[in-house]
């Protein structure tokens, strides 16, 4: 975990989607629903587009956790998104296990375009989990 900085909480990288979860994360800001400032977002078109290597890269470079804010059934690209995003997660978790990483450092939840509160709750609880696991 990065030390000596103002933001010394667990660092979480969020893969969010342009059309669905980005608006929810924006609205969380609009509504001043606070969450840790160590949560960073990279926008992608669809959650099923996340490559396992990006997740591993983030974890290896210093992120404590990766959160995929998935489109779920709202995906504008079709119903198969949920299943395909699930496959990305399970494949990556296996790769994480092989590398001796805690697979729980990767989390996925469906975040719809108005799911601001669920997003904030998810990243807060994920941050708490990562904090506890880094101390144990």
């Amino acid at each position, binding site marked *: 975990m990065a030390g000596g900085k103002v933001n010394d909480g667990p660092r979480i990288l969020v893969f969010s989607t342009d059309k669905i979860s980005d608006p929810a994360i924006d609205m969380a800001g609009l509504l*001043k629903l606070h969450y840790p400032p*160590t949560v960073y977002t990279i926008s992608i078109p669809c959650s099923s587009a996340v490559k396992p290597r990006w997740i591993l890269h983030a974890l290896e470079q210093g992120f404590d956790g990766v959160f995929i804010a998935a489109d779920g059934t709202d995906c504008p690209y079709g119903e198969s998104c949920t299943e395909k995003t699930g496959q990305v997660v399970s494949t990556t978790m296996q790769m994480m296990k092989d590398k001796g990483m805690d697979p729980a450092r990767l989390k996925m939840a469906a975040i719809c375009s108005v799911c601001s509160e669920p997003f904030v709750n998810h990243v807060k609880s994920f941050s708490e989990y990562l904090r506890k696991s880094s101390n144990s």
Partner: protein
Amino acid sequence: MKKKIGVYICHCGGNISDYVDVEKVREAVKNEEGVFLAKTTMFACADSNQKEMVEDIRKEALDGVVVASCSPKLHLLTFRGVVERAGMNKYNYVHANIREQVSWAHSDNKPGATEKAIQVVKAAIAKVRHAEALEPIKVKSTKAVAVIGAGVAGMRAAIELAEAGAEVYLIEREYFVGGRTAQWDDLCITEETGKELVTRLYDEVMKHKHVTLFTGAELVDYSGSVGNFNLKVKVTPRYFKLQCSSDELQKAIEVCPVEVPDEFNFNITTRKAIYHNYPSEYPQLPAIDMKNCTRCGECEKVCSSVDFSQKTEMLNLKVGSILLATGFDPYEPKKGEFGYGEIDNVVTFPQFKRIVHYCDDKLMYKGKEIKHIAYIYCVGSRQVDGENKYCSRYCCTANIHTAITVKKKYKNIYNYHFNRGIRTYGKAEVWYDESSRLGDIYLQSFEDHPPVVEKRGDQTFVKIRDILTTDKELEVAADLVVLVTGMVPRADNSIGNLLKVPKGRDKFFNEIHMKLRPVETVIDGVTIAGASQGPKNIMESMNSALAAATKSFSLVDSGELALEPTVARVNEEACEWCGKCEEACPYSAFEKVEKNGKTIAKVNAAVCKGCGMCLPVCPENALDLIGLSDEDVESMIDALIPNA
């Protein structure tokens, strides 16, 4: 790799700089690799700054630009336009969101917000370093718009769209058009009635061959996206044939044994299961309310137009844009709120309007003549403890206008206005003046001391500590207490849930930006109009309806939409055709081709939607999205790590 990047960090007035030290951000990024200039600006979107950016790009020959400001949903297109005007390809522009996702989200932690802003801007710089000049992809769009809601805003929008040349499907859930305005009598300023206004709009709607009106119709499902939405609309029949004689209808209504509260009159009267809200209502054909009909068959015996064989239909419509004009509900006070539901002569403002409509010579309510009327303002609006913090805007004006109407229509009326500050803004100020000249009494309190309504014996009293008379406690014996209720979002928000249209803090539909993109939502192709977006009077609803119609039309007009060129790209050297990309693609955008003696995958760019579902399945990592390569993503990840 870019070597002359311009970075602009926005204060957004104070929306960003109140929480993020923008100067510190500038200092932290000015020496990043490739950054040629880094500036802070009070409003990046202001004309003056846009001009300065154009000059910088031209004079310094910048090859990439980053603006760190609000959400890209708001200004990505603005700044792409700026760089294009300076002669730069717009895909050499990258937007960093340091307002919604930084300053506002972390307004509780200023140092934390500043540090995050630095990393977010560094990530945008990392991305723009690898940016490529690209051209947008063109797709066909359907020149048709679905307007949901045939109130005044919906009808006005439908007329505008049809006149511009679009095919319009006007979809109304009720059996009659006009929405809330149809329930209104005299309108403020014009003295026209709501019914007259609805009639004029309906006549215009029906003149247009390109408008198709569906009543009793509801959008129940949809697929697709901007330019090409596929809608499933459920149309419930009226159970009446198209022609119906008024005599037979009258008999059918008389024999109908069902009597239910009449929502059109805000439940102060009842109606039958066969009904029309008023005789000339449009469409001029009654309907049978099947939720309450007992199917006793009595109406069929006296009216040959009753037709219970009509079936619910499901229609499939294809449109390029959806315009929501679904209106509002009046606030329903809680039981006991200023005596509502407990004291028998306490009514809401909408109910009062209907009472005034039905009383000709004398103002009567529950058999008693009304002379002293107490109006309590801001009921359900500007709440201290409740959720409705907003002002409903129309109620002060509408109520004062009604109070004047009442005073002129009946003899010996005394109006007492218990208010928290009158907001008859704009031209309506003249009504406040007239009411005062006519002798109406205004009593005012702060929100912490609202008026109290109580019944003593047969009499109802309204008591207030009036700040206009140095906090004196004053009391009025009222024959009728009118609660001037505001607007709330529709209780049934099924369409908002279906389309996933975001709601604001007030729970009304939320626009992208109140001033700059006031009728667009974050759902591409879905626009909003009228009071579905927040409290509005009719004039304001018309303004927004025209704006939303124009915006929706702009999406469908040319029959073609320019989409992001973010499509999949195959690394031909790495690809060893295995077919997994073809399996993963929901759009069949891949084909197997032979090239230089090797079997590889080829992307059909016109079919690829740029979802990226193919990326993770490639065992050779031979696939990328243009603008989202491994290099792009991994360099952003690296930049987001503070110690990197």
